[in-house]
């Protein structure tokens, strides 16, 4: 890049270093930044694509990796059939391709182990992505902060990061995974076969040694509305609940 520091664009070129399919609809793209990129768990980035005629499309994606991962930034991108940027990633993007990235962005839906806990995390579908960054950060720091993740997915095969989450759960070091499948029967360790509700939140909080200090909720707008209401009905003060809503 020829930009001097004074003229440095907030955008940087990143290279796709690795691609890993997570579920039938979600694929992780590991991006290698071209200049230092420091971020906090829960933050997101803007990605910008440019057509030969100059037309640009940009979208926001949460970061799935923890800062401790070093090197690449992982974005887990769900394919939206009527989308413009996600089909590019799923159908065209290959290792070695370059895209432009801006960030990190967002200063509210973030958590570091120094912020303390316990934490109640609630994710729906690809809404688990920024929560994963928090969970991985906790694990990398060997933090003792108790964390429960209530993760709602339609079916077992759409549980993003499933093996890694089960592995972290099995360490029994204060991280608890609560799976809720909405279109399949529960199977261990999937505890529920229904949508999130207040009773599920109450039971999940019992896995924590004390009431949550923060609750983070991420997913579609419909999911976040229902989950946040379930938390409030379960007695979590609204002021402790932070939300991130995806698109439409």
């Amino acid at each position: 890049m020829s930009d001097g520091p004074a003229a440095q664009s907030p955008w940087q070129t990143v290279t796709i270093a690795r691609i890993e399919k997570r579920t039938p609809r979600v694929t992780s793209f590991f991006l290698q930044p071209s200049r230092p990129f420091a971020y906090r768990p829960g933050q997101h980035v803007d990605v910008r694509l440019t057509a030969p005629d100059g037309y640009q499309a940009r979208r926001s994606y949460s970061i799935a990796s923890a800062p401790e991962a070093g090197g690449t930034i992982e974005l887990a991108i769900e394919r939206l059939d009527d989308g413009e940027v996600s089909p590019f990633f799923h159908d065209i993007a290959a290792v070695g391709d370059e895209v432009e990235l801006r960030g990190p962005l967002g200063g509210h839906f973030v958590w570091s182990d120094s912020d303390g806990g316990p934490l109640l995390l609630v994710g729906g579908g690809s809404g688990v992505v920024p929560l994963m960054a928090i969970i991985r950060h906790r694990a990398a720091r060997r933090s003792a902060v108790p964390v429960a993740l209530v993760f709602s997915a339609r079916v077992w095969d759409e549980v993003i990061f499933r093996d890694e989450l089960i592995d972290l759960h099995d360490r029994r070091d204060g991280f608890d995974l609560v799976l809720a499948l909405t279109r399949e029967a529960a199977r261990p360790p999937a505890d529920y076969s229904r949508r999130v509700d207040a009773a599920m939140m109450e039971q999940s909080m019992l896995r924590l040694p004390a009431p949550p200090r923060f609750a983070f909720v991420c997913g579609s707008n419909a999911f976040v509305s229902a989950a946040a209401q379930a938390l409030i009905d379960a007695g979590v003060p609204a002021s402790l609940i932070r939300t991130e809503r995806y698109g439409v």
Partner: protein
Amino acid sequence: MVTRGFSSGRKPPTDADARIPPGQYLEQGFPVLSAGPTPRVRTEDWSFTLKQGPRPIKTWNWTEFNALPLTKMTRDIHCVTAWTKFDTAWQGVLVDDILADAGIEPPTAFVLALSFDGYTTNVPTQDLTAGKAMVALLYEGKPITPDHGGPARLLVPHLYFWKSAKWLNGLQFTERDEPGFWELRGYHIYGDPWREQRYTGDP
């Protein structure tokens, strides 16, 4: 930098293009974004207070506020998450009419919009007056749903939409331009979509 394999298939027609600020795309739906749970504010519990610093100037209840002159405003809106929606149709009370009912001229050059959930956002006074902004009560002729900020939200359509505070319960005149919730968390102090002022540090 041209992205390999990316084409401008979604590029809007030229007539629409002139209405879409840089870096935005046209959205047909109405996405919902907010930092916390959706507050359910009953109109019988609703009130709106005009303040100068900590001092209240005037407070209206729901009935009193709805008795103020209603104005229609149909505008394109632009969210910092990159969607633009054309021709959103609102009805509400112009900030000019609120000031007139309170019998005051703007006492300072800056305003902090205040919401029931503790959200705040700053807007220069001159961006709220002269017909530029309103406290919206209706969307497409119906009460604004809680998800979209009902019972009442600020509407400042020429700035990024985070400035149009949901669940509004007051406007506070301030001596200085005091950053609000998102402005303290990395978002631009002013937020003009046509200058693409998304984040702190954008020109």
